[in-house]
């Protein structure tokens, strides 16, 4: 109980510290701008697709995205796009009932959030080891509680960043697109952003682990971002070998990579809870590896 209390106290303090740094503000801003920019491009593509459908149907083209959303959602073109985003043909029909902007927000989140989480969490311990500010807390609580508290703090920060991004997307959906129900779009953004956030857990864990290994925040960030980028490369290689000669190794690798569970995160209902749980486990495992070093090191 005391342990949990300390974890929450450390997490709260970590969040307060992080949101007061210019680096965090800049990272939040960049994340929101990236989301806004990408959503703008997506709306332009959506608009172009709608006009293409309009021409195929022989009806008038539109000035604003969303005016011909009904026919577009039923078009093969759009379903192929959704298939490309989710990677699972079984889910295309189910997912197609969700506002396209919310689908896009989750897809973008799955792409960006690993780098955001890894990069932001990479300095959470290393920076205080370098300045030795960590000593004030290390005197008063266990090292495990310190690491877990900072990890939880980073997850909260990632959730806040995801929330900010969702608000940006919702705002764009309301102002630059017609036919969106404010409540429906908000609901789906919350649900899908939540799913995308669960995908950040292993990468935040990777960042915290890197942060435990070195007293240099810059080096920790390089390690965390490098490992995140590397995981995507390994994922691509494993996918390439899937079903081939090395399928056993490929399958095993995919089980151990968060990306291997990516498609299942799109599952409707409660189907996404299993991959979310796996992501949480992988995150905890990464933190555990970092903690093994942190527990034994001089502070």
């Amino acid at each position: 109980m005391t342990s949990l209390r300390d974890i929450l106290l450390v997490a709260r303090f970590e969040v307060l510290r992080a949101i007061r740094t210019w680096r965090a503000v800049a990272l939040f801003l960049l994340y929101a701008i990236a989301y806004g920019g990408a959503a703008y491009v997506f709306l332009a593509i959506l608009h172009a697709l709608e006009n293409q459908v309009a021409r195929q149907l022989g009806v008038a083209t539109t000035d604003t995205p969303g005016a011909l959303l009904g026919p577009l959602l039923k078009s093969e073109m759009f379903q192929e796009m959704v298939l490309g985003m989710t990677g699972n043909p079984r889910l295309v029909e189910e997912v197609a009932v969700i506002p396209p902007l919310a689908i896009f927000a989750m897809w973008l989140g799955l792409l960006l959030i690993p780098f955001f989480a890894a990069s932001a969490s990479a300095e959470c311990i290393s920076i205080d080891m370098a300045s030795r500010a960590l000593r004030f807390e290390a005197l008063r609580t266990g090292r495990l509680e310190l690491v877990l508290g900072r990890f939880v703090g980073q997850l909260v920060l990632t959730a806040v960043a995801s929330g900010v991004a969702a608000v940006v997307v919702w705002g764009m959906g309301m102002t630059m697109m017609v036919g969106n129900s404010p409540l429906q779009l908000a609901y789906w953004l919350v649900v899908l952003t939540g799913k995308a956030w669960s995908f950040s857990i292993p990468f935040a864990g990777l960042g915290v682990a890197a942060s435990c290994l070195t007293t240099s925040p810059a080096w920790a960030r390089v390690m965390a971002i490098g490992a995140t980028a590397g995981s995507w490369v390994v994922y691509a290689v494993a996918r390439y070998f899937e079903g081939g000669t090395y399928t056993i190794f490929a399958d095993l690798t995919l089980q151990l990579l968060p990306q291997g569970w990516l498609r299942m995160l799109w599952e409707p209902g409660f189907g996404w809870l299993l991959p979310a749980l796996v992501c949480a486990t992988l995150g905890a495992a990464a933190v555990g590896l970092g903690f093994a070093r942190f527990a034994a090191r001089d502070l």
Partner: protein
Amino acid sequence: MTDRPALVFDGVHKSYGRSKALSGLSFSIPRGSICGFVGPNGAGKTTTFSVVSGFLAPDAGTLDILGLPAFDPWALKGRLGVLPQDAELSDRHTPRELLVHLGRLQGLAARAARTEAERVLALVRLGDRSDSRIASLSHGMRRRVAVGSALLGSPELVLLDEPMAGLDPLQAKSLREALTAVRGLQTLVVSSHNLDELERFCDYVVMIDKGRTLREGTVHEVTGQSALVEWDVVGAPSLEALHAALPGHTFAMVDGVMTQSAPEGADLDASSIVVVRVLGESGVGLREVRRGVGLERRFLSDALAESADVP
């Protein structure tokens, strides 16, 4: 309170690679004392504090920290306060936020932590800056916040590594008064290069050099305040007359200073009346009288003797 010492080191070793920081350091600090922890740069003072605080693991030797064989954050929660020498404060918070957070981590409830933070901020005279960002505080103010963190919750054992560093004379005086006020209630271990200052408010002293103990004991024992008097005289006193007037006492002249060594249990106040009378009778003037040799001189003589012994 028990008679068991607050802090015991017995043959503790710690190395950083090939460099030995502690080479069998041993000492025992009585509970309730204000202990000066003295040594030159690199003597092992900060390493000693870091070992007690669990920041560093010793390579060998045994410890007794408030009855525990090693640092344990759970067993020592709220019982041990430490001012690390070179640790920076998290400067994105205000002193109040930081101290409330640390107080809560020590196990205090939210309200108690707020009250305690207020008390400590007043103690280190930072009540008016308690809601300023630490980043906006001067070095001395940050140092006082850090000192305050060590005193949070009135822990049984407080280690202060160079607490006066960066403080102006007024701030140092008020901090000294605050520390003196807890004499007998808490055990304070204070490391400082200012030996005159330590001599003024410490009652116990541990002197270390090269990771080993040179000497430890009460300030009176170490400085010889109960057995040694230095008389800075004008003229040549008759040592024979003094020996005759005070049998058992030894008088010697060293560099124009007359040293009086009294036998154990001697009443130095009574003997000083006799010395002044004898000096007056032989027409010798008096510039200054000092009890004991002073911590600084004792330390320097011990350190020099130690370096002469070590090849």
